[in-house]
């Protein structure tokens, strides 16, 4: 009974059909290099790739109905492009891609559930379980990172690392694009500087 030394994430997300699935097992031969590493998001090429893809995606967006919907579609498009850029190696990226496909399905399921259990809203919430504060924070973090609800802490931290790096890259790229669109000269410096906290 020999387990490989690389951590394996049990992956239960149904992957997007349009995206070729890469098994985690394919990462094993590379050893540590294939682990989600925060460095790969910091390269300029990644930012360029992301920006171009984002622009493409934004161009093909559906016409939104309301202002909120517009924001949501743009946000979703940005997240989706980010997930695609992740090349499927991380759990959160797969979760984002699967989210879109299963959104409708989950909505339908929720409707069915609520119809099936009419007393669901009447019950008071059960006794609040007072988890230790550390555990509560871990739960909160797992809610923030998409697709990492029931993950062990080491894996969760790994996913968080990659997610933070990806988010930073996303912010930079979107700021840049927004700066360009708003006509700010030397848009990258200004856009990035003004929006960074």
């Amino acid at each position, binding site marked *: 009974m*020999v387990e490989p030394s690389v951590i394996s994430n049990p992956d239960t997300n149904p992957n997007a059909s349009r995206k070729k699935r890469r098994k985690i097992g394919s990462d094993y031969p590379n050893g540590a290099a294939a682990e989600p590493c925060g460095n790969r998001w910091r390269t300029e090429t990644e930012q360029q790739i992301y920006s171009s893809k984002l622009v493409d995606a934004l161009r093909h967006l559906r016409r939104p109905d309301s202002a909120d919907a517009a924001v949501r579609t*743009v946000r979703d498009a940005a997240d989706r492009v980010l997930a695609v850029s992740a090349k499927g190696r991380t759990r959160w990226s797969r979760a984002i891609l699967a989210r879109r496909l299963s959104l409708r399905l989950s909505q339908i399921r929720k409707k069915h559930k609520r119809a099936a259990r009419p007393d669901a809203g009447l019950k008071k919430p059960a006794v609040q379980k007072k988890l230790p504060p550390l555990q509560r924070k871990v739960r909160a973090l797992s809610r923030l990172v998409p697709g990492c609800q029931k993950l062990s802490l080491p894996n969760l931290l790994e996913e968080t690392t990659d997610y933070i790096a990806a988010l930073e890259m996303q912010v930079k790229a*979107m700021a840049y*694009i927004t700066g360009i669109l708003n006509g700010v000269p030397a848009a990258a410096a200004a856009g990035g500087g003004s929006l960074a906290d």
Partner: protein
Amino acid sequence: MDQNDPFQSALSSMVSSPTASNANGNNNGENIVLRELIGRLGSICNSGEISPHQPYSSNINNGNNNNNYYNNSANTSCYSTPLNSPPKLNLSTLTENQQIRAGNHFPSLAPFSSDPGFAERAARFSCFADKSLVGLNELDSGKISRVSSSNQSLKISGSNQQNKEADKKLFSRLSRSSTPENAEVGDSRENSSVSQNDASNSRKRKSIPKGKGKGKEASPAAKDANVTSENSAKRSKSEDEKDDAKAKASFDTNQKQSKDNSKPAEAPKDYIHVRARRGQATDAHSLAERVRREKISERMKVLQDLVPGCNKVTGKAVMLDEIINYVQSLQRQVEFLSMKLATVNPRMDINMEALMSKDVMFESRGSLPHNIYPSDSYPNFQSQPNAIPTGTDPPFTPNNFSAAFGRNQNVQLSTIDSFNETASQVKILATAQMKVEL
């Protein structure tokens, strides 16, 4: 053979009083080594019948050897035919400690194995164990093959490739049972030298049933291994995996190493080997927890570098707070930026195919001076005439580029800007400007 006599006497003494062998051990290093080897071989030979002290060996024989063409029945049959009622020797009563100490000596057996007659003697002594000191002359090649298969059964739990190759070699030789005794002796000799190290591995793995030295999180240990055996087992395992060429591992060095447990975790071969440091608990749960904690802490360190302002923070709780805050702030930024993008994203009715193809072409040009041309030729695609002077653009410099860009912006954004045009322009400018900034 005249060398048989000391072994015979040693064996008899071992049979009579296993504890006495411990006492004598300090005096005769070699004899102890060989005695315990014999004991081990004998117990392995007995392993076909289930012995109460060796539950693991039978499991290992039964279980996971894919290369083992022999069934257990075959093993037992080839053992049991001449041995009608093999009395279970007290060798099987050797405690795990002794066996493991025998394991410690296995590296020292390498020179012994080079002894030409050694394997033969070992074979004979294994049958000593089986037959309770029946005379040697009755032994023949069949028994040596039995020893070889016993060696091979020792290799079952070994997972090294070397094992498997030797295994296959051994099998090929065993299958040709008509080979002369010398050839088999030679083969079993080299195989036994391989197998001894692996036998030590297997022995230790038997004593730590789930291979706790793997240091995995998810493997709950069987708790029947006592702490000392685990200590020594871990010690000897790290010895083996380091592949020490310590041919002469003496008692003294072994005993010293029993106290000197300060070696770090080894590089993983097929599983992670973890070493218990001095003064730390060594049971399976603690080790697994420690490994888990180390994983968590190293990930937290990586996160500490990633999240700004976390250098002074120590402790998981505060770190987690910071991480959560940072992720939330990043997500809020993305939300804010997408709101901004949405406001400059008007209706897109214009067909983008032409622009798309042009963009692709433009993007493929990597060099910077060429990027001027797309902005110049853009007016061709735009319905609005742009007052961009095509010929008056200065040669490319970063400042001029941004100036030209500003000019473009002023001209284009004054009108209702279709996102498409800016998008494609953005793309090119983005790539260009990013290259500028590089």
